[in-house]
């Protein structure tokens, strides 16, 4: 896939993810019913995992597009993206458990783990061989960073 197309796809991913984040922004309710508060919290976290899923898919497309032109970059960030996707899946599993009655709150720790893992790397800061690669990286990871920022601000686990 050429880099121009990748950039366009990345921008589309950014728009979709930002729209998803805007739509899911942590819902506020005027209820003291713990069941309502729990359902709203879990629903908001679910939307955050979905927004991050969009962003991760966009980041993956970008990484694959520079696999041959920026091989060192690919080698460095491919395992990291995979790790975050797995942590997102772990959060999804914990949220599913919470939906069916798990009251341990393990989903909160799972959300924090995503932000903690994300904080280990800075994917837009790199000695790119091709300047356009950095432009693509900034576009590709914008949605990703927005999603992680939302997760970190609501659940901690500073990114």
């Amino acid at each position: 896939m050429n880099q121009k197309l990748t950039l366009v796809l990345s921008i589309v991913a950014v728009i979709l993810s930002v729209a998803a984040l805007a739509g899911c922004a942590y819902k506020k309710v005027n209820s003291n019913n713990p069941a309502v508060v729990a359902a709203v919290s879990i629903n908001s976290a679910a939307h955050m995992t979905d927004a991050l899923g969009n962003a991760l898919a966009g980041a993956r497309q970008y990484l694959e597009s520079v696999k041959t032109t920026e091989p060192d970059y690919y080698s460095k960030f491919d395992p990291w993206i995979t790790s975050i996707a797995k942590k997102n899946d772990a959060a999804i599993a914990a949220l599913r458990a919470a939906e069916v009655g798990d009251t341990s709150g393990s989903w909160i720790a799972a959300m924090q783990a995503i932000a903690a893992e994300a904080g280990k790397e800075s994917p837009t800061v790199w000695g790119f061989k091709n300047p356009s690669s950095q432009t693509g990286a900034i576009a590709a990871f914008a949605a990703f960073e927005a999603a992680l920022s939302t997760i970190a601000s609501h659940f901690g686990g500073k990114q």
Partner: protein
Amino acid sequence: MNPALLAQLIQLGTQYGIPIVEQAIAAMKGNPQQQAETDDAYIARLNADTTSTLADASGKDQQAEG
């Protein structure tokens, strides 16, 4: 409730039917969604959305894992 506002709501109710008055009162109380339906119905709707959202998110993670 402000009497003038109440009068307006009653007039609206007469003109358009009672449901619009109920919705307006619910909106004034804040969180119209929740006021307009029971907690149980609201939770059920949230849970349905959560289930489909998580399924969607999981599929995207599989793509991201490459």
